[in-house]
């Protein structure tokens, strides 16, 4: 019995997926710092916004319009006398929530759609891809503007749903192309000869083999989605001022007065967007390298 346990200990376990990713992150200091930064920001923002009252922050206070940063307001106030620091925290939380929600929803829809189209191929694939093409040629911005005008109650969820409806195509196409490749491999055929059904093969055989691609794409999509939300809000088609996001803070800069003399309103939000997107991107790149043995550093 003793020799047997010795023997099992001697088997070198091949590194698991997480340990490969971890090694890659440790090797890439920038990505590690980015990850820590992201975690800190997320925890801070979600933690503090539990204490902060959104209604309190967005209440107009005519006695403290355009206050520069000072003791009472750490980052000053906007033209309605609203605390910029509070808006920044709530705004970051909202932006992050939308980014994550949209990424997950587009991910789920895109992966299932792409997997079905790619796995079955042929006519099914043809029809599904033509439907996708239809969504792809819709002018995203215009359609979103129309939806913003139509939808009466505007919340994080409804905004995410609108964005999801027009953003799932990219990942669906990517997954489809990979599924097309993967289903030709012998192990899929072998699994068929064992009597597995198509659905089972799709989700237990093909899906695990493309997870690395899904993780990397979704991480990089997260950065893009946060940027997109900020862009829409900046243009005035995102959230109203009563629901601050990083984009609404930025949009104050459309006023030349604010842009030139009241930097405290828009600079912090701009810097935060920049840092967030860079950090997510760095982590995403590290993940990408971790999933490709040829590019790995660790």
């Amino acid at each position, binding site marked *: 019995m003793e020799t047997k346990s010795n023997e099992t200990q001697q*088997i070198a376990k091949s590194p698991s997926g997480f340990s490969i990713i971890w090694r890659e992150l440790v090797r890439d200091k920038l990505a590690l710092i980015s990850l820590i930064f992201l975690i800190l920001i997320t925890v801070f923002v979600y933690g503090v916004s539990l204490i902060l009252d959104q209604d309190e922050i967005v209440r107009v206070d005519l006695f403290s319009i355009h206050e520069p940063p000072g003791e009472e307001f750490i980052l000053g106030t906007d033209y309605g006398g609203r605390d910029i620091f509070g808006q920044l925290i709530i705004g970051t939380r909202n932006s992050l929530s939308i980014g994550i929600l949209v990424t997950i929803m587009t991910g789920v829809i895109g992966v299932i759609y792409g997997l079905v189209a790619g796995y079955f191929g042929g006519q099914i694939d043809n029809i599904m891809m033509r439907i996708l093409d239809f969504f792809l040629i819709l002018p995203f911005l215009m359609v979103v503007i129309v939806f913003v005008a139509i939808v009466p109650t505007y919340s994080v969820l409804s905004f995410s749903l609108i964005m999801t409806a027009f953003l799932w195509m990219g990942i669906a196409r990517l997954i489809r192309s990979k599924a097309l490749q993967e289903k030709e491999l*012998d192990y899929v*055929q072998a699994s068929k*000869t*064992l009597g597995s059904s198509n659905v089972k093969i799709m989700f237990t055989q093909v899906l695990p083999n493309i997870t690395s691609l899904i993780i990397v794409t979704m991480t990089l999509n997260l950065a893009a989605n946060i940027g997109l939300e900020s862009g829409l809000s900046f243009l005035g088609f995102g959230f109203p001022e009563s629901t601050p996001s990083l984009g609404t803070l930025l949009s104050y800069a459309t006023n030349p007065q604010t842009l030139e003399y009241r930097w405290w309103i828009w600079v912090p939000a701009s810097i935060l967007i920049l840092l967030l997107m860079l950090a997510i991107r760095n982590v995403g790149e590290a993940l990408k390298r971790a999933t490709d043995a040829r590019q790995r550093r660790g």
Partner: protein
Amino acid sequence: MSEKLLEIKNLKTSFRIKDDYYAAVDNLSLSVNKNEVLAVVGESGCGKSALAFSVMGLHTRAKIEGNILFKDHDIANISSNDLNNLRGNEMGMIFQDPLTSLNPLMEIGDQIGETLILHNKDLSAEKRKEKIIGLLDKVGIPRPERVYKQFPHELSGGMRQRVMIAMAIANEPELLIADEPTTALDVTIQSQILELINELKEDMNAGIVLITHDLGVVAEMADRVAVMYAGQIVEIADVHTLFESPKHPYTRSLLNSVPNADKAQDKLHVIQGIVPALQNLPREGCRFKARIPWVDDSEHEENPELHEVTPGHFVRCTCYKHFDFPESKEEQHGIS
């Protein structure tokens, strides 16, 4: 012995190229008995694998006509549910390339377990594990408890082929199709794998279809041999007859192309030309005609059929009666 397990009748498997369907397996009839190894030989592109895939129902976009009778079912016209009940349970398949036939992200135990879960639902998890380890042991894998937890990339090619075999035989199928099971393996492993398949045949009383282009393997393993050329069977006989008195020019050319260790040879015999592509295949007359140009046209049949030469020995076309290998190069090219 002569109980028919699988009977293929007038099978025609066609693939679409551009807008037309071309038959890769053309009007083929064949039967496999219980406890028998039927070898299917032929060059690459003769339709051997297309035949195997038709029997397993793996073609997704091919047009399949004719009947494939297996027990009470006709696999050519069966619902996918019924097919899934058969596959893995009563028929199994061993693939050519063990390096790609296993899912790289699944532990060996789980991969073999998949078919047990599907077809043997009452088996408890512990019993299942026991059975899988038993199977691994049966196919000759050392330390099966350890391999159970390993991933395919941690095993060698021969081990992986053994795992494939274990998967195929997990539910003791009555029909086992081995599609070039030893092509990707080196010679020593080859003989071990073949021995294993032979043992399993004895154990399970199963019918085995062995697809290969290695005549050595055929001589060693098969009970009967079907020689395929361009989607048709050109000769079928039991293994002794086929090796001792081959009739069809193609069979004789194939046997003649095998290097012989007993006598010194400068050059190996080569069958001229290649198997024509599916679109360019002559659908009328003797399909092998183009590759033996020195044989006169009048010696071929117009519509070659299988002729029974001796009981159980069938040959297609009449050209075998006059066929001989040419003496000189010129003659071979039909110039003389």
